[in-house]
């Protein structure tokens, strides 16, 4: 197999911020002492006047961003997913969601592939928290190319938005040209298939594509959907998948409670007229642990082998 070309989505974020910052003087960036990790440091170096280092004070960062947005600025606020949501839920709720403030939260280090720092730093509830908020858009781009496009769309779109990427380096899945038609709220069909639909977001899209190749050898044809937007969910596409394949698997580096899987389940339960075999892959209501990312993804059944096995079982049952 050809070795995959890699690029960290965090770097794509940092580079895109610089590009946007050159074009639009209203773009401002805030960080909470993690600018080297979130890559907002690239923007800080280019535009020191428009970068605000807020220190380890996330609550203040979010409300300050809302103040900036109230004066026409387009703030991007960044830190790790665990601090960007759970620690500041009330600030996001009041100052961004309730107020429909034009603040973009871009979080890195989402999911368990954060690895050795352990459960304290492995955010698996952020999508659930943000999804529960009225007015909030929730995004989880899957590779560097898509991250770049999504950050651009975040700057154009008015309203509060949350996006999360992982920590690790990630394979490049898409050519930039392929992103021209990307729309927020519209899932991307990456591979067509008839037997099962695998709806994935973020880091799990690449894993799902690996599984698709393995399933092909076993004569199972899997449709692979990149659900970069978890809210608003592309319900039409979910229902189309149900109709066309009769089996749906969701997979995410997130709890099965409240995330992509839950959103898809809600849609299917309320709206699907077709009988569907369905399974949510994700963290099943527990915290994880320290470890090498690959070991963790294997142990918690978020790897190619687990998807392949789940799909086989679902389709053959």
């Amino acid at each position, binding site marked *: 197999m050809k070795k995959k070309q890699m690029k960290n989505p965090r770097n794509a974020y940092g580079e895109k911020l610089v590009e946007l910052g050159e074009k639009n003087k209203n773009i*401002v960036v805030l960080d909470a002492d993690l600018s080297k990790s979130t890559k907002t440091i690239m923007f800080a170096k280019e535009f020191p006047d428009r970068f605000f280092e807020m*220190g380890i004070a996330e*609550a203040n960062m979010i*409300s300050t961003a809302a103040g900036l947005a*109230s004066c026409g600025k387009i703030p991007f606020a960044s830190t790790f997913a665990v601090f960007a949501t759970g620690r500041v839920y009330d600030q996001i709720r*009041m100052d961004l969601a*309730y107020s429909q403030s034009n603040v973009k939260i871009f979080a890195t280090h989402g999911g368990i592939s954060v690895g050795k720092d352990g459960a304290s730093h492995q955010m698996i509830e952020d999508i659930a928290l943000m999804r529960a908020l009225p007015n909030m858009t929730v995004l989880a781009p899957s590779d560097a190319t898509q991250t770049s496009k999504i950050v651009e769309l975040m700057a154009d779109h008015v309203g509060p938005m949350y996006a999360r990427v992982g920590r690790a380096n990630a394979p490049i899945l898409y050519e930039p040209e392929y992103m021209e038609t990307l729309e927020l709220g519209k899932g991307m069909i990456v591979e067509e298939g008839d037997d099962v639909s695998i709806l994935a977001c973020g880091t799990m899209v690449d894993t799902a594509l690996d599984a698709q190749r393995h399933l092909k050898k076993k004569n199972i044809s899997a449709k692979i959907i990149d659900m970069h937007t978890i809210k608003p969910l592309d319900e039409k596409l979910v229902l189309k998948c149900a109709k066309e394949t009769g089996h749906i698997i969701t997979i995410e580096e997130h709890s099965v409670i409240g995330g992509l899987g839950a959103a898809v389940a809600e849609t299917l339960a309320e709206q699907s007229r077709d009988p569907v075999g369905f399974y949510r892959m994700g963290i099943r209501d527990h915290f994880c642990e320290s470890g090498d990312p690959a070991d963790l993804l294997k142990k918690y059944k978020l790897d190619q082998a687990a998807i392949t096995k789940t799909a086989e079982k679902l389709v053959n049952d």
Partner: protein
Amino acid sequence: MESLDENTLKKLEILAVDIRKHIVEMLYKAKSGHPGGSLSAVDALVTLYYTIMKQNPKKPDDPNRDRFILSKGHAAPALYSVLAEQGYFSKKELNRLRRVNCMLQGHPVCLYIPGIEASTGSLGHGLSFANGVALAGRLDKKTYHVYVMLGDGETDEGQVWEAAAAASHYRLGNVIAMIDRNFLQIDGNTEDVLQLENVADRWKAFGWHVLEIDGHDITEIYDAFHEAKAITNKPSMIVLNTVKGKGVSYMENNVDFHGVPPNEMEYNLAMEELDLMKEKLGASA
């Protein structure tokens, strides 16, 4: 700096009584809300809106306007009354506070109430928001000021101190904050609940220019705002020494009226007292 002339002072004192009447009436009609902390905030708000702030009810979105943020959102009746008197919306709206299908929510919301800059009600956010407005003003080379009022109990919240540090770090001379120091919060005296003293020293230690004044003396409030505006290299904190429930005898310093509206008898008594106060100031009730 010129001091406040006697005519203006008299007018503002009378207006402050009218605002207090609005508050009592609104809460009586709504049968809910927070009288104590609304009444203590009145004199500072009246002075601010009528003598200090550059603002125009006809142009609530003017990018050059001064901003006021009510961080202690539960004092909304005081702010709503001032905004209505200013002409941001009709005074009739005041009677519809807290009702279904009405604009005036229990706590301020910026989306659809003219003159409200920030949605508040969960304590501790307002100073951070004000810092953001101040930073935007600096980037845009605007000369506006950002005024923000905090409750004293509110400063229990950790976020307030994150914001205090940030305002000082960024030398936000265009931020002028106030603390409504009425010594009462829901569970009792602030010093029993979670000691705040010495309030002024705390803010000084965070690098702020701190003033301590009588928060019901309009002349002192006026002078304090002018002093604060002259300080440009650091944020200013005006500690307003106030009386919770100010202006209604049985509500004064009475924690029971933090979040409980007057009943009919209490309402009538309050209105009588406030009308008498107006007469003493030489105005008709």
